[in-house]
C-alpha cells in the first residue's frame, strides 16, 4: 500500500488549528477509533478539549508509537525524552490523553507524574497540583503525627 493510499484523518484543536494524521496512528486513541468504527467521522474531527500546543505533542507521541520499524527500547528512549517537560504541560497532556482515551500515552505520563511526586514534600505536591489545603493547623499536625515511623 503506498502512502498516498493510506487513509488520513484531520483533527481540529480547540483553537481551530487542523492537523493531518494517518488513521492507523490516530486509532491508538480509542475515542477516535470508536468514531471511525461507527462511521461517524466528520471532516475534520473537532477536539474541543485539546488545544493546538498539546495536540501537536500528542500527535508526535502517537506517530512515534505507531511506527512499526522502531524497537520497544527505541520507543522507550523516545518516551524518556518526551516526558522532560514542565509539570503543567504533563498535566495538560494527561487531560488530553484521558479525553482521547490514549492508554499508552496515559501510562507513560502517569508513571512520570508518580515518579516525580515520590520526591516531593506535602507542600510541594499542593503547590504543583494547585491544591487547597483544607486541614486546620491542629488537624494537619495530628495527621502528620499519626504514624511518624512510616515516614522514614
Amino acid at each position, binding site marked *: 500500500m503506498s502512502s498516498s493510499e493510506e487513509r488520513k484523518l484531520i483533527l481540529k484543536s480547540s483553537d481551530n488549528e487542523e492537523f493531518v494524521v494517518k488513521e492507523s496512528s490516530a486509532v491508538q486513541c480509542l475515542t477516535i477509533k470508536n468514531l471511525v468504527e461507527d462511521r461517524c467521522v466528520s471532516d475534520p474531527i473537532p477536539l474541543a478539549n485539546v488545544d493546538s500546543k498539546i495536540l501537536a505533542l500528542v500527535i508526535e507521541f502517537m506517530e512515534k508509537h505507531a511506527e512499526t520499524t522502531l524497537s520497544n527500547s527505541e520507543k522507550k528512549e523516545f518516551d524518556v525524552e518526551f516526558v522532560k517537560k514542565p509539570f503543567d504541560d504533563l498535566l495538560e497532556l494527561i*487531560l488530553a490523553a*484521558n479525553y482521547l482515551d490514549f492508554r499508552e500515552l496515559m501510562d507513560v505520563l*502517569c508513571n512520570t*507524574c508518580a515518579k516525580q*511526586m515520590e520526591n516531593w514534600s*506535602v507542600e510541594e505536591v499542593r503547590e504543583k497540583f*494547585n491544591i487547597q489545603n483544607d*486541614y486546620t493547623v491542629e488537624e494537619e499536625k495530628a*495527621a502528620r503525627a499519626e504514624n511518624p515511623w512510616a515516614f522514614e
Partner: protein
Amino acid sequence: MSLQKRELWFSNEDIQIDVLSRLSAKILNRMKCVSKEWKCLISDRSFVRFQVKNTETAKGFFFQESQWSNTDIGFINYIPVEGEGEKVWRTVFNFLPEKVIILSSINGLMCCRSCFSSLDPRIYVCNPLNKQWITLQWPHLFKSSSSLALAFDPVQNPIDASTDFKLVLVSDTMTGGEDYHLSFDIYSTETGKWKRSNEFCQCKHKLIKNKGIFVDERLYWLTDGYQILMFHPQIELSWLITAPLPATYFRSIPEMCIGESKGRLCYVIISEDGLQLWVLEDYFASQWALNTCITLKELERENSSVLSNISKKMASSINRGTLPHWIDPLAFKDGMLFVRVATSIYLFRFETRKMKKLTEISMLGLNPMDSPTVIPYTMSLVPLG
C-alpha cells in the same frame, strides 16, 4: 494551566486515581496530609483495591525478643530500612488495646496475639499504617510450640467488598509412642471459624526462626532439620522441602533463614563457605537454584569496616558450640538481609553487597539474642473491619 483546565483535572477522579495508584503505600500515607479530599480518596477501599500490588518491597523490619516470662512481653521494635541514623521505633502497636506478641505479616497486615496467661486471650489482625484492627476467635489448642501464620493476597482475593484472609495454626501432636506429627488448623474470614484440616505432616523437626512466610498461595516455615515445611491453605496440602545443601555438607553448623523476594521463596545460608542465596524452583522436587554466592573474603573486602577477620571469628564462634554464632541471618525479604553480626544489627543488600548498620542489639530488648521474632514489613493501605 488555565483555571478551567485545573477544574477538569480535579473533577475527574479517574485521573487522580490513575496517577495516585502508581505510588507506594508509604508515599500515599504521606500524601494523606495534602488535603482531606486526598485522605478520603487514599483511604477508600475501592482505591486501595486498585492500588495494592504484590510487588511492593519491605520498608522495615519488626523485631521482638522471645517471651521469657508468662506475664511480660518485650517491646515490638520497628527498624526502618532507610532510616537516618540508628532509629528504632517502639510505639507502632500502641493503638491496640493490650501488649501483643507479633506472629506473622504479609501485604501490610500483621497477625499478633495476647499473652497466653491473659484472662481473655485474643488473636489480632491489624494494619499499623491505618491503625485498624480486628480480633478473632482464639484457636482451640494454641500451645507455645504452635505457630500461627497469615495468608493474605489482595491481588488474588480483591478487597473491594471486604478484606479476606486465612490463618494457619501449625501444632505438634503426639500420635502415640514417640512419633509426633504436625497438624493444621485453618481460620477463614469467609466462615469466621477455625477448622481442623485433615492434612497432617510427619515432621521430626522443630519450627524455628522464620515462621509462616507467605509466597504465591503457600506458607513456608524453616525447621531446625534442613527441611522447610510448606502448607497450601486453599488445597490443604503439606510438603517437606529439603534445604538446598544437606547437613553433612558442612564442617560446622551454618546459620540460615528463609524469606521472599520477587515472588519466590529464598533460602539464605552463612557458613565457612560464605553467604549463599538460593531460590526455590520446584517445591515438589526440592529443586533450588543458586542465585548468589559470596565468599567470606569478598564479604569482608566489600565491608571492611564492619567485618574484619570474618573467617577467624566464624571459626572460633563455631568451635564454642552452644554460644550464639558470631553472625546470624535473622530475616530476608526483597534482596535485603536483616543480619546480626556480633552485637550489632545490619542490613545487607545482595545487589550492592554492602552492609549498613541499623542498630545495636542491646537497643532491642533485655534478652534479644535468644530466638527473637524478626518479621520483614511491607506497608499497605488495606483496610480492616
